[in-house]
């Protein structure tokens, strides 16, 4: 659709104009790190952030959400839950945009998940082009998520004094009615080109092989000795899956008020790294060792999810690498498997 220009001094005004109509989420600074938060004061929005603790996934798949409420005094009745108000997400990096595109496939394939879809339909995504790596852990260039041409309603590119606003959908076009924007001039387009061209050299490839080789590599790595090594180190803390933009597994449980009458069935994020994840009621655990659980995690990221959804399960955001206490990172794991294969299993 159209490319327009939003002067930086008009950004706060744009967001203020949205606040009466939308819940607005975006990155804000918290002490030494950044997080997506609901924006009430537009000046708090930090579109130049490096990365956030959690991905914006939490706006579409909340850490915990109600599936329905019940009242035990009328046990036949179950009530559906009201959804959140229309939401605009600002400052979504293209790696996280890629993660949301996977979630869209997961929750609309086969059975359509009503909670996710209702929330997704009333979410407007304003993504932003990354012009420098978040830090040494980002490997978005290797994973092909360093830019995006779809999945957003508006994509912003920082041109210095202004943002280029690339509206990609009708929802995005309509949102820009709240903004003081100008059509892009030839100079703006030139500036855009030089900004984009300048960024690519700042990012480096972290994988020692092309990402198209990842799934075939993993399919011959089921019996690698590396999994036992990872299992010995892994603390099964589940930090890696909690911060992942593509982890979508959840638990379902009932919670009841103290008066033991009203309650709700909730789903909350769960992790395949936890001991009880694959345990059945009788006590048998189908993935008992941490080695097998780490293998399951990496196989999902690079292979299983790809085979099911035709979309990689890793975006290269680097969050799991940043947060792992024992330095288990996708880049090191994938590269080590590659080296093992190249040397016939001798590392």
């Amino acid at each position, binding site marked *: 659709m159209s490319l327009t220009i939003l002067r930086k001094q008009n950004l706060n005004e744009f967001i203020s104009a949205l606040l009466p109509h939308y819940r607005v989420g975006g990155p804000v600074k918290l002490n030494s790190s950044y997080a997506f938060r609901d924006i009430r004061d537009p000046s708090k929005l930090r579109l130049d952030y490096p990365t956030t603790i959690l991905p914006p996934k939490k706006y579409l798949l909340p850490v915990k959400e109600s599936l329905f409420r019940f009242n035990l005094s009328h046990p036949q009745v179950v009530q559906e839950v009201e959804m959140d108000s229309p939401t605009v997400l600002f400052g979504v990096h293209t790696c996280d945009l890629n993660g949301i595109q996977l979630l869209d496939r997961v*929750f609309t394939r*086969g059975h359509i998940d009503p909670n996710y879809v209702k929330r997704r339909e009333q979410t407007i995504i304003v993504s932003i082009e990354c012009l420098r790596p978040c830090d040494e852990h980002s490997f978005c260039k290797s994973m092909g998520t360093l830019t995006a041409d779809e999945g957003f309603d508006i994509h912003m590119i920082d041109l210095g004094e202004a943002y280029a606003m690339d509206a990609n959908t009708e929802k995005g076009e309509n949102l820009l009615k709240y903004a003081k924007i100008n059509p892009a001039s030839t100079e703006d387009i030139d500036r855009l080109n030089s900004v984009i061209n300048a960024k690519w050299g700042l990012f480096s490839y972290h994988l020692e092989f092309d990402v198209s080789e990842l799934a075939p590599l993993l399919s011959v790595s089921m019996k690698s000795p590396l999994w036992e090594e990872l299992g010995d180190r892994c603390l099964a803390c589940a930090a890696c899956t909690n911060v992942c933009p593509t982890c979508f597994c959840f638990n379902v449980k009932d919670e009841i008020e103290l008066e033991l009458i009203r309650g709700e*069935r909730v789903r909350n994020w769960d992790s*395949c790294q936890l001991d009880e994840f*694959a345990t059945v009621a009788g006590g048998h655990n189908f993935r008992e060792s941490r080695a097998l659980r780490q293998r399951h995690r990496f*196989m999902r990221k690079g292979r*299983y999810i790809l085979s099911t959804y035709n979309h990689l399960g890793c975006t290269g955001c680097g969050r799991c690498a940043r947060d792992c206490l024992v330095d288990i990172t996708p880049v090191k794991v994938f590269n080590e498997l590659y080296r093992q294969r190249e040397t016939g299993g001798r590392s």
Partner: protein
Amino acid sequence: MIITQENNVTVDNVTIEEELYLPTMARIASIIPMTALEKLFYLDLPSGTSLGHRPGQFVQVSLLGVGEAPISISSSPSRSNGGLELCVRRVGDVTSAIHNLEVGKYVGIRGPFGRGFPYEKFRGKDVLFAPGGLGLAPLRSLINQVIDERASFGRVIIFYGARNPSELLFKEELDQWAQRDDLEFHVTVDRADEAWKGNVGVITTLFRKISINPRNTIAITCGPPVMYRFVLMELLGKGISNGNIYLSLERHMKCGVGKCGHCQINHVYACQSGPVFPYSEIMALEEAL
């Protein structure tokens, strides 16, 4: 609507699935204690609705305030009359709470979920059932379906193993099966008691009692994880092909609709592609057995 992957049979269950995670309340019509740990629950669905399940499928059963658990359906479609039968072992929070319920109380039902047995393909063939322990609960659905269409099948052989006589499920039905001329029914217990006059030994000891035509036999087994490799050795040893052996695998499905991840076997969601699998589909899956 659930479309089974097997042969694109459309199963009409739209009447009870208004929302994906919203249970339909079903009334407990009767409860039959079966063993110290298992009870059989007859559930009535709201009038005018039916489950529309296939043998081998499961439902998510819930008790509001306690939670939800996947339970296989024990009744056969041929005998479902606006209701369903669930054999529930008291083993976790939800099943323990369900065991404490009385007739007239309600439980929530979602489903049916998963891929059941493609029993239309078994017609004209000999069918060998090998349930172990609680594995009879899902297989009973298909056994009774086969009995109700008895003329459509060849030999029907049932090998049932339990740990001891007090753990045998559906005892009255077992007696009826034993008396039928058109069923070859064999039962064994790992450990006998004083009253037991029958076979003693694990389920695989029954396989030596008969000969089968491996070219025309479908074998169906369900039981505890440890049982599968021994039963598979017997079945494969008799010459039954990988694709003619069906297993029903247990996993802890939390959602039943292929999202939550708990039931995954490598990349396969057991709640969608299973719980019934031909052995040929899972023999290459590292985490299946």
